[in-house]
């Protein structure tokens, strides 16, 4: 136990940049996360409880934001978990008093069964499956470019101004098929051409290179569902 505690800071540092190490650390400290959740709920959480998911998410956030200046990691994580659970509780409080669709009705059947189904569940299921396949293909292709989805989430532009610059570059690339072919062939983002063509700063594009890889791949053939998801943005960029 002592050795695990001694190695914890090193593991946390490693988990900051490695998603697999972060997953492993979370799995190893699930008992701790469950205990913190139980302290808040005053009962043992189930695997299906959203609070447990929130606690795990808070634990991951603690890994990302921890530094030795903050003291003990577990104490820091405990505070983070508690804060997140309180925020979630307050947010969910607004929906209190509402009846769950899965609650049993008069005839002991879920209320949901009594409601008309406006959506086609099977269609939704197929759509979701197709989307999943596209996403898996996209992830595999991004690995050829040396990027992963967690990396892209880190590299994604946060500010609206920066996002707008990247979107203009992507829209310019869509208007230049030769540029997209060069991108797929060289496995490199043609930053200079994009900057000149879109009239944006190259430095901004360089800072968000991994993000541009993902979005440019979506713009190529084979990712219609994903492209449809962000079509509003793409159409907006195409507008003069």
């Amino acid at each position, binding site marked *: 136990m002592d050795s695990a505690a001694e190695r914890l800071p090193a593991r946390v540092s490693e988990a900051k940049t490695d998603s697999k190490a972060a997953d492993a650390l979370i799995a190893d400290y699930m008992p701790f996360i469950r205990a913190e959740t139980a302290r808040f709920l005053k009962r043992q959480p189930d695997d299906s409880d959203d609070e447990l998911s929130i606690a795990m998410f808070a634990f991951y*956030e603690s890994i990302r934001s921890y530094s030795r200046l903050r003291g003990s990691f577990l104490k820091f994580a405990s505070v983070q978990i508690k804060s997140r659970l309180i925020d979630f509780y307050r947010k969910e409080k607004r929906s209190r008093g509402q009846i769950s669709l899965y609650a049993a009705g008069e005839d002991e059947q879920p209320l949901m069964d009594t409601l008309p189904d406006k959506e086609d569940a099977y269609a939704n299921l197929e759509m979701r499956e197709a989307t*999943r396949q596209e996403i898996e293909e996209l*992830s595999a292709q991004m690995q050829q470019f040396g990027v992963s*989805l967690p990396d892209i*989430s880190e590299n994604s532009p946060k500010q609206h101004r920066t996002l707008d610059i990247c979107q203009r570059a992507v829209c310019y690339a869509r208007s230049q098929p030769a540029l997209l072919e060069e991108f797929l062939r060289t496995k490199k983002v043609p930053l200079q051409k994009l900057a000149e063509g879109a009239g944006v700063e190259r430095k901004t594009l360089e800072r968000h290179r991994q993000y541009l890889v993902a979005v440019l791949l979506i713009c190529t053939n084979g990712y219609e569902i*994903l492209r449809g998801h*962000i079509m*509003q943005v793409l159409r907006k960029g195409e507008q003069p």
Partner: protein
Amino acid sequence: MKYLVMECHAGYAVLMDEASRFVKAANLHYEVGQTVTAPVLMEETKPAIRRSTVVRIAAAAACLVLLSGIGLKVYQNRRKARSSIRLCSELEFEMQLNSAGEIIRISSSTESGQAMLDSVSVRKKDMAEVVGELLTLQREQGYIAEGETVSIYIDSEDEQKYEEYKSGVETEAEKLNLLVSVQPPQPPHEHEKGDPPAEPPGIGSGLTPGGAEEPPQEALHTVHDAPEPPQPPEGTKHEKHITPAGPGSTVKPETGTAVRHPDPPAEHGTAPSAQSEHTEPQVTTETQPADTPVPPETPDLRGLPHTDPPHRAEDDTPAEPEAGEPETVMPPHEQHDTPGQPEQPALAGDTESDTQDELPVSDTTDETETVISPEPQDTPAEHPEPHPPIPQAAERPHI
């Protein structure tokens, strides 16, 4: 805003919104490809640098304060007078040097001397060089004749520095065909002048620009040897040269400086007690404030029984200042007006102590001169040689 679940992990999920942003959120049992609308998004992690930044700023501020303090201390040390050199000629000059031998103050007790100083720049100049310039100017203006002997008193805590200054001064004098008599400052004798210095000896502040007029010409003009105890000009407070007194000669306190050089060698820089690092100590010069009438003979030693300025070591008892010379020691405050000059406590040792209490003031002009030698017979005019022991006096060349 709709979010498309792109990837699921144990503690989080990667979502893509309709603006093509990729974000991390809590994995509330999501599935890849699922579309969600109200995810729990990850907050922007603020880097934990605040504390370290504060620590760095505090450390930088502390270093700055420390360096400033050190710099200030160094500056103050450089401005502190460690040695003084008095050029006793018709125009008396006094220079104060710091530990590095740089001139930090220079003044003259005469108006002509002051005027001469105005025409000389001492900035970034060696002490010997400045002495040479002053001697040159004096010679050109007729204050010194070629071949004359000029008395120079060097008061330094460090014997090595004393020798260094001495050799520098002698070298400069050689170039001008002048003779110099370099000695450590000596306790003021009653100076031969006879006329009681008008102003009380005071603390022997060296040459205060206050413009003490030069002591009686004849006394000062001595230029050669034994600086007569300068008659304190009436009303002016300045200390002129130091009359060498015998070892242990007491300086009248009132004269301002209780020079207590028991022996010449001792004085060299070691006679600190007698004089403060500044030459002050011994010179008697009347330090009395101008307005204060100088009691003729009666030293107003605060109870000092005797006024024997130079009292030798063996002469433990404070010599009675017959001419009212107070005990040697020049009360600190009187001794010098220059900062940093501790007034000389009494002469060598013995009585000085008590003499010190009583104030130097030699309110009597007499005392200024008398201060030096305990016994009245110390010729005030000549510079006190009352006590045999003072070798310097003896060797003082008479031209």
